[in-house]
């Protein structure tokens, strides 16, 4: 009971902290981030492609996480519904075109990459609908019990994030050389930063729900509900703040978050070892224990945030 209360309190505190950060964005950020005015650089014709390739890498890391995670979890579900193969196919394709994009230095969007990224994003959305339907039809409907133990409500959105980041990468790449990349008329850096911030918050929600289910039995389980919300606030602040400014703290925090994603996979591997039978009983424990491939989603999003920071530095719009 005490542990539950602590867990609720910590989750609440993390959210409150986030809200407070958002509300006091301007002032807080000035306190945290040393303000350094930098002159507008001349537009580097290769900058957009470089940023797009960074975003391809981000989309690829998220796709790899989704591919492995959905493979494990949907195998656990014995591919009961044939549609459960869809995320494996689209995440694998998203991973492949991300690798292609990373190697591609041409300043034009690629039709196949574009199509795959859109398909991945749509698959994620449809998957979310499936998962919501799956939870709703269980006895008790949208109860905590079903949110904890049915199909994870937030997981398919990671595929949408991979697709969305890849799609944005293609828009950035498609910039006419000599012009600043924009997406729907908005500075591309701001758009990607905002998308990263939202993606991080969604992923925090998923980690928070499942770590709450795990009663935060290991203190390190608090990390993904405390570090990434700050990252989301910092990169969100960058999205709406001034671009003509270096943001060393945001950059550091994004790198830290990227590291956290990989560390999370390591912690989850330890979690598998702590289940009965340990790694020798891997056929059960990899499925039953904490999902090893899930945390690197944070890494992918942090990489997208770093790409956004680079874009904003290369192409200030104020």
């Amino acid at each position, binding site marked *: 009971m005490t542990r539950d209360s602590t867990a609720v309190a910590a989750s609440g505190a993390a959210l409150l902290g986030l809200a407070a950060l958002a509300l006091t964005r301007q002032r807080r950020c000035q306190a945290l981030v040393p303000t350094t005015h930098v002159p507008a650089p001349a537009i580097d014709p290769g900058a957009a492609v470089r940023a797009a390739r960074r975003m391809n890498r981000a989309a690829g890391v998220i796709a790899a996480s989704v591919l492995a995670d959905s493979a494990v979890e949907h195998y*656990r*579900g*014995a591919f*009961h519904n044939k549609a459960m193969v869809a995320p494996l196919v689209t995440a694998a394709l998203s991973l492949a075109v991300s690798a292609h994009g990373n190697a591609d230095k041409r300043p034009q969007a690629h039709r196949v990459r574009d199509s795959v990224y859109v398909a991945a994003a749509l698959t994620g959305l449809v998957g979310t609908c499936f998962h919501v339907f799956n939870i709703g039809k269980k006895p008790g409907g949208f109860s905590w019990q079903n949110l904890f133990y049915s199909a994870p409500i937030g997981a398919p959105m990671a595929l949408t994030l991979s697709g969305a980041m890849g799609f944005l990468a293609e828009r950035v790449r498609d910039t006419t050389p000599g012009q600043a990349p924009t997406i729907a008329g908005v500075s591309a850096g701001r758009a990607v930063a905002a998308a990263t911030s939202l993606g991080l918050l969604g992923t925090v929600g998923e980690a928070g729900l499942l770590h709450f289910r795990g009663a935060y039995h290991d203190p390190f389980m608090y990390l993904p509900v405390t570090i990434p919300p700050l990252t989301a606030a910092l990169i969100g602040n960058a999205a709406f703040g001034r671009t003509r400014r270096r943001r060393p703290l945001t950059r550091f925090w994004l790198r830290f978050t990227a590291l956290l994603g990989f560390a999370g996979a390591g912690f989850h591997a330890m979690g598998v070892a702590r289940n*009965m*039978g340990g790694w*020798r*009983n891997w*056929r*059960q424990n990899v*499925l*039953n224990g904490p999902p090893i491939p899930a945390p690197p989603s944070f890494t992918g999003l942090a990489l997208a945030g770093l790409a956004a920071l680079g874009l904003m530095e290369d192409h200030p719009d104020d």
Partner: protein
Amino acid sequence: MTDRYPGYDVMSKRWTESWNETTRKVIDRRLAISREPRFFSGTEWRTLNAVCDRIMPQPKDRPPVPLAAFVDQKIADRLMDGYRYAEMPPQDEAWRRGLAALDEAAQETHDTLFHMLSTEQQDGLLCRMQQGGLTGPAWGGMPCKLFFEHRVIPDITHAYYAHPVAWNEIGFGGPASPRGYVRMGLDRRDPWEAVEATPGEEAHARLKNDHGG
């Protein structure tokens, strides 16, 4: 009896990750149970065996699960349920009285001991016990219906389904220690679980069960 899990032998899990040393010891102890009574007298033992044969009849083509021995062990080792009905004495006393009362009833109605009766006559007496129709000084005030429902049936059937032979019949994997279950939904099967044969698919099930574990 139809073999619903053809080729399945839970004992083949013995050296897989499904079982660990503790599990192996528990199962070994269970299989090595003495066939001689420690608690019951000779007369009681014969009556108890006759009751077990009627409550849980077993096929003749395999060695029977020694049900009476498990009931005897439960009492001798004082493995209690943790609760009992106020009208019922403790399990040792309940079994003593119940078996004596069955012999008493057999004497009254057929002039011989319970284990000497035909199976139809034994079933008749057990049915009367189930319906609360047996009375006599040997019961010592214990309601025969309660004895049937809360001693005879659970003690004998629990003993049966605690045995690997019964697990093979129902496709059960034995103690989930260390490997348990992942696919918890209805009609879902983990790869290390027994495969139930659907009509016409017996060979497929047998093949999978041969490689299970």
